């Protein structure tokens, strides 16, 4: 099975406090810790498990600037066979459809049976898999948390639906799936693995390599454009307990008592 996994380099929101730059044109990127989008690790892990079971190979692909190479390398250290970076000045300002168009052009250069994406990334939009599938005219399932290869033409997938229930479907290959967390436990990537792929060459494909007209991607091709970043309007918010740790404890226990939090 030839599997393509789309991955993205994102600021790690568990590690960082994200702030808006003074003029609102971007977030402050100076001291940010970046990592692979959490959901993408689950997608790569799933791809590895499939390949190890039925054979084939895994390509990880990312649309981004030169720095995105580091996440491709990390996923290769995890077990992906090959990485491709899609990078061009003209890609800047692409909306979701633009990104999907760029990836579609790469997909058409290869011959893939299965494409996996993370369920969502830092913007929460969860759009690339569904857009890409429709552009390719391939079937799609979102929020997949179970996957079983039936034969070389069909897979069985479980989709997450509300309330912890799961919807089982059978799908034809080739198809696109967005992978939800919980499907597996992504393996640990050790320093040795990282070293092993440190010098592997990662091809960079530009708009011209992909046969993309510059006006079809980037800000030129985007119907949805980002205007600015801003601090969310804060609601009333919590009453914050102040003072020493001891004082906070006393106040909190008092509150828990009056609100029925201690039985």
């Amino acid at each position, binding site marked *: 099975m030839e599997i393509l996994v789309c991955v993205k380099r994102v*600021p790690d*929101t*568990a590690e960082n406090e*994200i702030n808006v730059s003074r003029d609102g044109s971007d977030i402050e990127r100076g001291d940010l810790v970046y990592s692979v989008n959490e959901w993408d690790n689950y997608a790569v892990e799933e791809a590895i498990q499939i390949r190890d079971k039925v054979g084939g190979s895994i390509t990880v692909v990312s649309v981004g600037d030169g720095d995105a190479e580091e996440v491709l390398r990390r996923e290769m250290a995890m077990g992906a066979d090959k990485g491709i970076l899609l990078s061009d000045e003209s890609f800047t300002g692409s*909306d*979701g*459809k633009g990104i999907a168009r760029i990836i579609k052009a790469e997909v058409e250069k290869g011959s893939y049976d299965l494409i996996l994406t993370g369920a969502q990334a*830092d*913007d*929460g*939009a*969860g*759009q690339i898999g*569904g*857009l890409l*599938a*429709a552009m390719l005219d391939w*079937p799609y399932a*979102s929020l997949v948390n179970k996957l079983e290869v039936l034969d070389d033409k069909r897979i069985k997938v*479980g*989709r997450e639906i*509300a*309330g*912890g*229930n799961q*919807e*089982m*479907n*059978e799908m*034809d290959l080739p*198809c696109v799936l*967005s992978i939800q*967390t*919980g499907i597996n*436990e992504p393996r640990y990537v050790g320093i040795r693995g990282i070293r092993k792929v440190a010098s592997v060459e990662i091809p960079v494909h530009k708009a011209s390599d992909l046969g993309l007209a510059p006006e079809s991607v980037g800000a030129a091709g985007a*119907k*949805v454009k980002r*205007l600015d*970043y*801003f*601090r*969310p*309007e*804060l*609601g009333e*918010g*919590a*009453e*914050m*307990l102040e003072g020493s740790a001891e004082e*906070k*404890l006393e106040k*909190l*226990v008092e*509150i*828990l008592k009056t*609100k*029925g*939090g*201690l039985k």
Partner: protein
Amino acid sequence: MTQQIFAYIIQKGGKIDDTALELVSAAKKINSASSVTALVAGAGETLAAACSQAAASYETVWKIENEALAHVNAEVLRGMLVRILPKESIVLIPHEHFGMDLAPGLAVKLDAAYLPDAVGFEEITEGKLKAVREEYSGQVSTHLSCDLSGGAVITIRPGSFAGDESKALSGQVVNKSADAAAEGIPGKSRRFIEVVAAEVGDVDITKSEVLVSVGRGIEDQENLEMVNELAAVMGADVACSRPIVDAKWLEKSRQVGTSGQTVKPKVYLALGISGSFQHMGGIKGVPYIVAVNKNPKAPIFQVADVGVVENILEFIPALTQKVKEVKG
């Protein structure tokens, strides 16, 4: 603006989802004068009930009935919608499990703009809608401009628009089933098999009066021991956010949120939980929420009643000790 606005209604067993009323408010922000049409799809007897319920809030309801929609399949429904939706329509869809499945592909097939996960609309100038989205787990917001001229598919985050409760309408139900299936049933490449119901755990957290809920801030499975101890002295049950279940540290039945349980305790103590909207979706209407987080800007402090900025790894044992003292 002459474009028609449509709202996709999530319905189950003849009952429409809360988001149905939220989409009315969202649509009115795009065009307060426009008549908004509800799209209600499904099969069987209960569909009529869902349609009439929707008709209390929408001027027009398009009923799309087909056996193939008995369990709604995004691929089948998309094919049907593409046949019946007028050119350049604006389609609003809830940003939840089914909406995320349906919406992006629909935007491609309608050749419309795609704006996912909107939490607010500010204005329209020259056919461009200025919308708000939250990014980076709710830590920052962003304004987006969406060109509506060629139509648009927009998903709306549940709970971000107030539900329009006016319910004064007696809308007209129009049966679009024949048109939608005129060329046969679209899409057979994804076939529904069954729904597997959530496992039942040893504790039913939906019945708990007090919940001590723990998130990724707990860092290590071993640290759950201190959470159990705190819950024990408080007389509470232990719940959690999703990453804890994903790591298999606690069973799925303890997960609070849109893809977990909706809980109604008197007091909800959230420890090391950032407050993603999917998590908060499970504690709507909880009378008292206390949050402890080391990041003073964690979004959960916006919805909690009381907040404490502390490292939970130190705070939990100290709190356990204090509760013990107080209870004697």
